[in-house]
């Protein structure tokens, strides 16, 4: 054996370039984690604008405090854990923004600080950071402050365009739970007017949960970009509609107000922006449908039978626990796998 590669012929063209060597594929599509996170944040913009319109400067302050605390918490905790600081991937920004959407505008500003800290440091980074957290960070942040400051977290103000004298105002779901639909109609006059206000967002509630139209605009954009799919949100909302129609009425079965339930509380925000969180939900499509249906059923159960007027947050958090199990149990059949049993090798 002789003439190894080194004595390759002199007629070779000059070795022109240092070549890059790697395992394929050598092409990649346009998507990346940061682009997805920032796009989802962008899709919340209509809801953010509506919240500032309806709740004014206090809403803006809550949002800013959430964002700043989230970003600072992420940077500090990553520095302490000696990991690369990844603020530019947009995930901490998105968590902060989602948490803000889940807080009342009149909350004292230590609430967004505490919520963001719990969301980023405890829920996300102590569980391993992006991709490894079991629970939706923004929702754990909100659950923490809701349980720690129950009074402050359930006191809401009327929107700036409502002509009422009251300093505070209950959300439609609280009214329904405590006083019934007749009380709601006293405030909103007719069912149609009620639906309209729910749809546009002219009601008491957390910053980002009130305007259904603004949320749907963002959600539609994400669906179009295929950043989210229908598999979780549609079964989620449909289940809430069906079950609240079946069991939500005072006059027995099938007398509930499905439209009211589907547009109230944090359902639209939760179904399209929180339950669809990649990390904490299942990734197998069929498992996502089950996830959505179960979250919907839990939401109705809490709304109708639980101690809280609203159940979206706890429903999603409870389902987060089951996401890995659903993925494991419902993975799709490998191409040709079942047929393989009959084959003799």
């Amino acid at each position: 054996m002789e003439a190894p590669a080194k004595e390759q012929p002199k007629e070779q063209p000059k070795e022109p370039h240092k070549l890059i060597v790697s395992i394929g594929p050598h092409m990649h599509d346009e998507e990346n984690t940061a682009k997805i996170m920032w796009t989802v944040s962008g899709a919340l913009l209509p809801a953010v604008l509506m919240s500032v319109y309806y709740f004014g400067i206090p809403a803006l302050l809550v949002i800013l405090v959430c964002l700043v605390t989230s970003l600072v918490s992420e940077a500090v905790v990553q520095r302490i854990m000696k990991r690369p600081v990844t603020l530019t991937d947009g995930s901490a920004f998105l968590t902060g923004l989602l948490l803000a959407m889940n807080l009342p505008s009149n909350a004292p500003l230590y609430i967004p600080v505490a919520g963001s800290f719990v969301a980023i440091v405890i829920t996300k980074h102590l569980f391993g950071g992006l991709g490894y957290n079991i629970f939706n960070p923004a929702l754990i942040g909100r659950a923490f402050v809701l349980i720690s400051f129950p009074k402050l977290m359930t006191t809401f103000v009327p929107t700036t365009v409502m002509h009422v004298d009251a300093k505070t105002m209950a959300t439609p779901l609280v009214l329904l739970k405590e006083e019934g639909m007749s009380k709601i109609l006293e405030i909103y006059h007719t069912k149609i007017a009620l639906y309209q206000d729910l749809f546009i967002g002219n009601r008491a509630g957390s910053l980002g949960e009130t305007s259904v139209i603004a949320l749907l605009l963002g959600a539609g954009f994400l669906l179009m970009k295929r950043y989210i799919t229908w598999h979780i949100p549609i079964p989620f909302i449909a289940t809430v509609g069906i079950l609240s129609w079946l069991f939500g009425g005072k006059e027995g079965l099938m007398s509930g107000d499905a439209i009211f339930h589907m547009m109230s509380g944090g359902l639209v925000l939760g179904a399209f922006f929180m339950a669809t969180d990649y990390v904490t939900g299942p990734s197998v499509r069929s498992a996502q449908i089950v996830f959505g249906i179960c979250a919907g059923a839990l939401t109705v159960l809490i709304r109708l039978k639980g101690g809280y007027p609203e159940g979206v947050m706890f429903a999603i958090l409870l389902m987060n626990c089951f996401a890995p199990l659903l993925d494991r149990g419902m993975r799709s059949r490998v191409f040709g796998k079942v047929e393989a049993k009959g084959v003799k090798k």
Partner: protein
Amino acid sequence: MEATTVHARDTFSGGVHPADNKHLTAHKPTVAAAIPKRAIIPLSQHIGAPTKPLVVIGQEVKKGDKIGETAGFVSAPVHASISGKVTAIGNFPHILGSDMPSIIIESDGKDEWVAGLKETPDYNVLSPDELKKLVLDAGIVGMGGATFPTHVKLSPPKEKPIDVVILNGAECEPFLTSDHRLMLERPNEIIEGLKILMRILNVSTGYVGIEANKPDAIEVMSKAAAGSPEIKVWPVKVKYPQGAEKMLIKAIAGRTVPAGSLPMDVGVVVQNVGTAEAIYNAVRFGKPLIERYVTVTGRGVKEPKNFLVRIGTQFSQLIEEAGGLTDEAAKVIAGGPMMGMSQYTLDVPVIKGTSGITVLPKAEVGIKSYGPCIRCGRCIDACPMKLQPSLLGLYIEKGHYEDAKDYNLMDCFECGSCTFVCPANRPMVQWVKKAKKELAKKKN
């Protein structure tokens, strides 16, 4: 042709849509590359046992001389692709990444065929076994890139009857157009090759599967097959990896090859269109496989082209003939960008399975690190085998190879769809290759 695609519904579930970039070369007629002054002919250009050299240093050889003899059933002989003198037998760079035993022939400039090539104008009188012998002697292997010895595929065990032969003209790999040009330029040879295949396997149904983005090839091939009602030209949907054997069988024959099994288990044999053309040349003219179509393409070469190339021609020569590398050239890939292998040197030779050389400029080469899996599920949707690449990646990243095996690691054929779509840029294919190697090591 006005339409850029024709209608086609047949496909498989999953897959991805990389930009095909075929416009760089699809319209360019194939030109013969210069006969190399020095051919590097690896003794192993196929899956299976490497061949044993039949020549010694200093020996004169003619074009078509057998210089490497099979060693075992799953093997294929290699032949001199130029006439000249054997100047070295030793380890030389090979596209698989390490040096491999090769025979070096310096050209005498005469380009003379070996004496006694056996022409058979009436090859239809030959028996299937005689035809198969000609295929074996010509050193024909799967030319789509897999390089599995063709005569082995043509020898299914008796208990596995074959009733369908599919020619693979899908060419789903981005950038490459060598099969496309071959179908446009040698349609009759391909169809005759298919008929020989059908005769060997005693099959009465033949298909030519072509992705719908090649309407001109579909038209030309349909014309060539017009007189043969047993052969259908079958457009399939444009989607990567449509040209993967199992995916093509699903799309055309509607049959699902069981996991861990071969196409012959569902009565199908798939061959690349280039292989069919080589079979025709071998049977009709007695010519061994010594040249093939190669697309030299990408925005890293100045004039992308389709070439007819002698086996053993170095990449450097072809790239020079394609105008040379641009200043921005950064990655040279043997094959296409999805499943091809990047090269560290341009000294490597074209072998029987080299369908193209793709040169990517710096701007198209991502050198990014990867991030954590965000469990978006894009890879699960993309996987044509319906695996969960995200989980495979997480297991293998932590060294849990056995767990990866439980999640059907072995069913992955490394098409790269998962890695192509991964927003966190996770190198799933690299991990899968690694896990398979580690598991094999443990077994031994």
